[in-house]
């Protein structure tokens, strides 16, 4: 099972919520060979969605050239302390992870 994400959501001046996400994922490119010379199959996050109060605030698609343990930073207008930001990712093997953070 995938490890949890680290999500920070902070309300900044001007009513903008800044979201910073760290995802635990190997992001294997499919180009690397292992010690035995066999190609390690691609294994990477493909889709990410972020919602606030049920409203989509970001959707992203990742390819294998996003770094291992991906970082994602974005911000949106609105948000209040105590409200939740929910992030979900899915990968090319069908694995999935959803975590949430409270806006502070």
């Amino acid at each position, binding site marked *: 099972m995938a*490890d*949890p*994400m*680290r999500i920070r959501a902070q309300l900044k001046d001007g009513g903008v919520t800044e979201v*910073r996400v*760290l*995802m*635990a994922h*190997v992001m*294997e490119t499919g180009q*690397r060979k*292992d*010690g035995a010379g066999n190609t*390690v199959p691609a294994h990477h996050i493909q889709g990410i969605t972020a919602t606030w109060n049920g409203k989509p605030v970001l959707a992203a698609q990742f390819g294998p050239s996003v*770094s*291992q*343990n991906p*970082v994602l*930073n974005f911000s949106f207008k609105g948000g209040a302390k105590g409200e939740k930001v929910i992030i979900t990712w899915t990968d090319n093997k069908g694995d999935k992870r959803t975590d949430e953070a409270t806006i502070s």
Partner: protein
Amino acid sequence: MKKCRVAAIAVIAAAVWLPAGPSLAQDTTKEIERYRQMLADGNPAELLEMRGEGLWKEKRGPKNVSLEACDLGLGAGKVQGVNAVLPRYFADVNRVMDLESRLVHCQVTLQGLNRADLVKRPYSLAAGERQTDHEALVAYLVGQSRGAKVNVPQAHPLEQAAFKRGEQMFHFRGGPYDFSCATCHGEEGQRIRLQDLPNFGTPADAQRAFTTWPAYRVSQGAMRTMQWRIFDCFRQQRMPELIFLSQASIDLITYMGVKAKDGTMDVPAIKR
């Protein structure tokens, strides 16, 4: 792991990046510094800290207890700041232990886990391999010492003896290259590629080194512990393999910690 010819690579780095004299060299150094700062903002080791915290608090092992009663040197269950005052003498075992030795000790004595199993493969060495529980626990524990001032004790005779042995080992030359730790880390201005190597003869350098390990290595996509760092220095010197949690490893960490007195812990760090 790939071979790394220290001298040759320093020359290659110079040839590639520093062809046009000191001003460009300075720009390069500044840009690399900027790159490092950008990386520091979002350290994947935080993911491992979270996992480690879970493991620390989880009831595990034959005795089905958590590690929360573990005494890491500042009292049972106290984790804040411990990494800044380790290695130290522990009366219950009558020896000096570093963080990783004490962690394994607690897993054996408190949780009833088997020591041989715990030390068999403490690091996740294969590319893309999931980090080990040991690495996760270390990530959590050292993260609890962020901002703490380094003060590795030297009051007990065994602590002083560990420092002395560590100091000797640091300067001991051997192996096919006739290297010692001091060959790279005992002089000013040494570097491998773009990394300026810390000189343990200078307090500021010793502090910079000691307070930024463990670190997440972006080239390996993994957080590495202090025990691993020393192990890898030995490998790069072509010395015999340094045994995990050996007295030698503890002595060297003691030497480095004492040299780094008053540095501010900033771990897990993030490095190239």
